[in-house]
C-alpha cells in the first residue's frame, strides 16, 4: 500500500489516534508544569518531500528534536519537536532557571530529554491501550539543529517506499509563556494498515 491510497475515513481515524495520544501527553505536560496547556486539533499531513522541511516554520529554524524509534507490533518513529527558544522556556519553567544561552547545558539537556520521554511515553501508552497493540519505544535521542536536517531523518524512511510523507502532527501551546511544540507520530507504511485494522477498519 502507499500513503496516497489512504481515503478520508482512514485519515479521520489517524487524526483520532493523534487526538488521543496527544491529549494524554498534553495532560502530562500540564501536570508537570502545573500550568494550563492547550492542544490544537491534530493534523494528518501528507506532504511531498519538498514541503517536509518547512512544516516547522522553515528549514533553517533552530529546533530541539527528540526522536524515538518504535518497534513491536508497529514500526516507525515518534518525534517531539519544538523551536529552540520554546524548549529553553519550557526548561526554565520546570527548573525555575532563567538561562538564555544559545545551547543547552548538561542539566538542561537531560531535563529536556526527560520531558520528551514522559510526553512521548504518555502518547504511546494511550495509543497502545486504544489499539491493543504492543508498542516498544527506544531510548529517546535528542538533537539541536536546523528543522530541515532533523526532519530529513523520518522523511528518508518514507523515501524508501514512496514519494509522500505522512505526519500525524499535533501542536500544543502554553499561553502564559508562549511555549509551542509538536508531537509527530510517524508510523512506517506497513504499520498504517496494522494501526487501522486494530481499530476495526479494513484497508
Amino acid at each position, binding site marked *: 500500500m*502507499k500513503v496516497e491510497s489512504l481515503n478520508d475515513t482512514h485519515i479521520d481515524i489517524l487524526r483520532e489516534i493523534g487526538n488521543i495520544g496527544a491529549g494524554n501527553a498534553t495532560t502530562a505536560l500540564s501536570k508537570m508544569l502545573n500550568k494550563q496547556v492547550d492542544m490544537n486539533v491534530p493534523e494528518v499531513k501528507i506532504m*511531498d*518531500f*519538498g*514541503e*517536509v*522541511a518547512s512544516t516547522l516554520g*522553515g*528549514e*533553517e529554524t*533552530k529546533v530541539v*528534536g527528540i*526522536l524515538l*524509534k518504535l518497534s513491536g507490533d508497529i514500526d516507525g518513529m515518534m518525534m517531539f519537536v519544538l523551536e529552540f527558544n520554546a524548549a529553553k522556556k519550557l526548561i526554565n519553567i520546570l527548573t525555575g532557571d532563567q538561562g538564555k544561552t*544559545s*545551547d543547552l547545558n548538561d542539566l538542561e539537556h537531560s531535563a529536556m530529554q526527560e520531558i520528551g520521554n514522559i510526553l512521548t511515553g504518555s502518547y504511546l501508552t494511550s495509543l497502545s491501550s486504544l489499539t491493543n497493540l504492543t508498542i516498544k519505544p*527506544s*531510548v529517546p*535521542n535528542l*538533537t*539541536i*539543529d*536546523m*528543522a*530541515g*536536517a*532533523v*526532519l*530529513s*531523518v523520518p*522523511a*528518508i*524512511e518514507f*523515501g*524508501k*517506499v*514512496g*514519494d509522500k510523507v505522512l505526519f500525524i502532527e499535533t501542536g500544543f501551546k502554553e499561553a502564559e509563556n508562549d511555549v509551542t511544540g509538536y508531537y509527530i507520530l510517524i508510523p512506517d507504511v506497513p504499520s498504517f494498515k496494522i494501526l487501522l485494522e486494530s481499530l476495526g477498519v479494513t484497508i
Partner: protein
Amino acid sequence: MKTVSKVKIGMAELDIIKKEGILTTLGLGSCVGISLYDKIEKVAGMAHIMLPDSTKISHNENKAKFADTAVPLLILKMEKMGARKSNMIAKLAGGAQMFSFAEKDDTMQVGKRNVIASRKALKKEGIRIVAEDVEKNYGRTIELSAETGKLLVKSIGKEITEL
C-alpha cells in the same frame, strides 16, 4: 550590492543554472547535496539526494531521490545547457548522522551510505571531487554560485566555510 537570484532545491529535487545566480539547499541532514560545476561554461548543478541506491527500492521513479540516478541525470541536464563532462568538478556536503542511537542500525547510517554512494556515482562518470564537508552530526545549508563555482556551507553555531 546587486541581488542574486537563488534557486532552492528541496529534498529529492535537482536543478541547474548558468552564468549567474545561486543554487541552494537549506537544512541538509542525512541527505547529501551534490554540487557540479563546469567553470569554463559556468554551468552549475545541484542535486539533493535522500537515498544511496535506486536498485534496492521498488518505487524509484524519481531519479533525483537517489545518488546513483541523480548524478547521470544532473550531468545530462548540464550538458544540454552547454556544459562538458570533462570540465566538471564536484563538491559534496551533508550525509550527517542527526541522531546517535547506541545500536548502529541501517536507518541511522543512511547519511554515511549516501556519501559513499555519491562518491561512487561520480567516480563512475569520471568526475573529480575537489572538496567535501560530509558526515559528522550536524545539519548544513549550502549555496553554490554559478559565477564562481564556490560552495558556501553554513551550520548552526559554526563559522561559514567556503569549499
